[in-house]
Structure formats: structure tokens, C-alpha cells
């Protein structure tokens, strides 16, 4: 878990840690009201529940909580009159710098020495050859039974299995509205009227439904209309077009 997602339930705030940070940084929440100790407790509890220490996350948490503590201490403590941390005197500064320079020099010179060793060492080339085959396998005398014979029988069983038929249930037949419109128009051109059940009774349900939908579309365009004498009775589809020429263009 990322530290940012650490869920907090404090007196003054409840929500994820990163929201708390955002609110504090935008001055929408005063750090003075937040008990930072509670956040630490929440984090330790979270660690306890997790059972293992994610070092990256723990480091991130330490950095964040440390900066919050620093911010808060600045808020709570009176500002110093002037910078109380006096700069190092020239003597101390020189000593500190000297110590660091000496430390660096030691490794710089050791580095020069290593570079010489490297230049000398890389003239030697070593053999890079695989071991001869007999040495790459277990010796017969030392060999112990470490494999399960069962494994071979299972593998053979796997090989005897023929693959199941491919599952095609996810492939759905498609019925094109365009195609159904063409069929309806063709029927009307031939006979001016037809019985829906006679024409489409043997089609599957999807085709029937799309055909019905196509019929509604034609009705809307003024191409077709229908009669149904009684509920669930036969439907007679008729052309609503007076002039044949306008069929297909009547919108």
C-alpha cells in the first residue's frame, strides 16, 4: 500500500493521508489542530495489520511525517528574533571542509590505484567454456531417486486428452437492419401486401424482431403500414407508397 492511501480517522480530520497533506499545504487545514502522534499511531497499526515492512513505503512515510513535524514546530514555536544559528567561524569551516577533502582525496587516490590494477588485470583472459558433457549430468553412482514416476503418468494422461470443441457461445449471429429493409421492400414491390407470419414465421426470433423493427422504420418513413384484426391475430403488411418510383427514396 502507498503511504498516500493510509486511511486516517483523527479528531480534526478523517480521510486518506494524501488528502490531509494537500489540505495542509493549501492552508485549508491548520496543522496546529492535527495531532501528528495519532498519524504515527495509525501508521504503526497499519504496519501491524500488514505484517511486513515495506521499506520504500516506510521511508516515504518517515520523510512526510518529518516534514509535517518540522512545519508544525515552526508554527508553534515563536519565531527567533534573528537567525540564532550563527555561521561557522572560519576556523571551524576550514576544519570541516578539510576533513571532507581529506576523505575524498583518500578515495580519489585509491581510485587511481584501482585503475592501475584494472589496466594490469584486464590483460589476462580467462577461459569461458562449458563443462564437458559427462560433468554436466548427475553421475550414475551418486544419483538418487528425486523424481516422481507419477509425474510421467500424469504427463501422458495430459497428452491423451483431446481438446474440447472450441466454445463459440460468445459469437452472436448478427441480423442487419439494412438487409431486413431490403427484404421487406422487395416483398412489397412484388405484391403490395403480404402476411407477416407467412413471410417470416419460419425465421428465428432475432430475425423476426429485427424485421419488425425494420417495419416500424418503414412506417415512420411512410413506406409501409399494416392491419391486425385482433390481438395476436395475423398481421397484413401493405405498401403505403402511391407511386412506385418513390419507393426507397421516400424519406
Amino acid at each position, binding site marked *: 500500500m502507498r503511504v498516500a492511501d493510509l486511511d486516517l480517522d483523527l479528531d480534526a480530520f478523517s480521510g486518506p493521508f494524501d488528502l490531509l497533506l494537500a489540505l495542509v499545504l493549501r492552508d485549508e487545514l491548520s496543522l496546529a489542530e492535527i495531532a501528528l502522534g495519532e498519524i504515527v499511531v495509525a501508521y504503526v497499526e497499519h504496519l501491524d495489520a500488514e505484517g511486513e515492512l515495506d521499506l520504500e513505503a516506510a521511508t516515504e512515510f518517515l520523510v512526510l511525517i518529518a516534514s509535517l513535524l518540522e512545519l508544525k514546530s515552526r508554527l508553534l514555536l515563536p519565531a527567533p528574533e534573528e537567525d540564532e544559528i550563527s555561521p561557522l567561524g572560519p576556523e571551524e569551516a576550514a576544519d570541516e571542509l578539510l576533513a571532507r577533502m581529506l576523505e575524498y582525496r583518500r578515495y580519489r587516490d585509491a581510485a587511481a590505484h584501482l585503475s592501475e590494477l584494472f589496466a594490469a588485470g584486464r590483460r589476462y583472459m580467462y577461459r569461458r567454456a562449458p*563443462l564437458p558433457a559427462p560433468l554436466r549430468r*548427475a553421475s550414475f553412482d551418486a544419483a538418487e531417486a528425486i523424481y516422481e514416476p507419477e509425474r510421467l503418468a500424469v504427463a501422458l494422461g495430459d497428452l491423451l486428452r483431446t*481438446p474440447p470443441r472450441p466454445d463459440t457461445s460468445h459469437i452472436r449471429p448478427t441480423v442487419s437492419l439494412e438487409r431486413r429493409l431490403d427484404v421487406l421492400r422487395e416483398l412489397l414491390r412484388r405484391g403490395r401486401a403480404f402476411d407477416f407470419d407467412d413471410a417470416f414465421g419460419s425465421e428465428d426470433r432475432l430475425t423476426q424482431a429485427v424485421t419488425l423493427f425494420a417495419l416500424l422504420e418503414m412506417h415512420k418513413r411512410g413506406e409501409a403500414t399494416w392491419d391486425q384484426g385482433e390481438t395476436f391475430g395475423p398481421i397484413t403488411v401493405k405498401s403505403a407508397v402511391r407511386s412506385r418510383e418513390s419507393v426507397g427514396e421516400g424519406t
Partner: protein
Amino acid sequence: MSAKPVEHLVEALLFLSPEPVSIPELAEALDVTEAEVDRALDLLGDVLAEGKRGVVLRHVGGGYTLAADPAAEEVARRLLSKPKTPPLTQAQAECLAIVAYLQPVSRPEIARIRGVNSESAVGTLTERGLIEESGRSRFGAAVYRTTPLFERLFGLAGLDSLPDPARFDPTPEDERELRERLLRAGEQRAGD
């Protein structure tokens, strides 16, 4: 280079090269004539004759190479041979099962049963000494059988102690011969 005797340079080259090196290759690398390489190899062959040192000069497969004295094999095994018995992969287990139950069996047959090229698994099994070539099929393909080491590593008293695959057989009612059924199942898988 000039001061270094040619036979020493040849020794260094053969020492470094994992593969045998031919006389023309040596001559080119050393920028000397093939006759000089020949002479150097003669000298080196005297010094590194079998029994003289720990390393011997060998003439194999169109070139020269250095090898450890065979007398050192036993101690070398003690020092270097970590038993090469890692768990079998599924591909290796399948190939090994096919060889174990059908032996002798050819590589094309193994591939047909598994439905995939099985060269690498067969190679590894051969390398580890679990299977070995036992001749050629009528069509010239290498045929394989299991080795005594295989029986050792599987704790089998003999090949007839192999477990009955019927228990793991998804189509036990089918009474045809195992080989035929495996081939048929493999072809169906490949036909997808």
C-alpha cells in the same frame, strides 16, 4: 608478440577458445604460415601428451582443442558437478513420458504427439542423460530410449515399474494401443 614462441601463443589460443580451432584459423590469428602452426602443434602435442600434464592436446572435428586429462574426471566431478537435476518443465515431462512409455520413439513422433516442435526439451533430456539415441528409424530419424540414469533418478526398478497411465487417462474406455491414441490426440490438437 615477436618474442613469444608460436607454440605458447597457440596454447593460449586453444586455452581460451571454447571450440576447436583449425590450423588456418590459428595461422590467420597469429599471422604466421600454416607450416609454422603445424610445427607449433607438434611441439605442443609432445608437451601435452596424455599422462604428461593435467591438460591434453586433442585433434577433434576439424580442429585442435585442449581438454582436461580424462584421469581427472572423477575428482572434477567431485569439485564441479552439482547434480544437474532441476525440476522437470511440463515440456520435458511430456517428452520424457513419451520416450519412457513408447520407447524406442523418434523425434518426429514426439513432435506429432505433443503437437509442437520438441527439439529443445529432447536436447535438454539428452544432455542431462535421462534419454539417449538408440539408433535410427526406417526413415533415418534418431530414435530415443531412456537410460539407466533415468531409472535411478525416478527410483524405478525397471521400465515395467512405470506407473499405469490409465489412472490419469481421460478416455479409459478406448482400448486401442497407447501409441496410436497418443498420435491421434496429438493430431487433433495440432488440427485446431
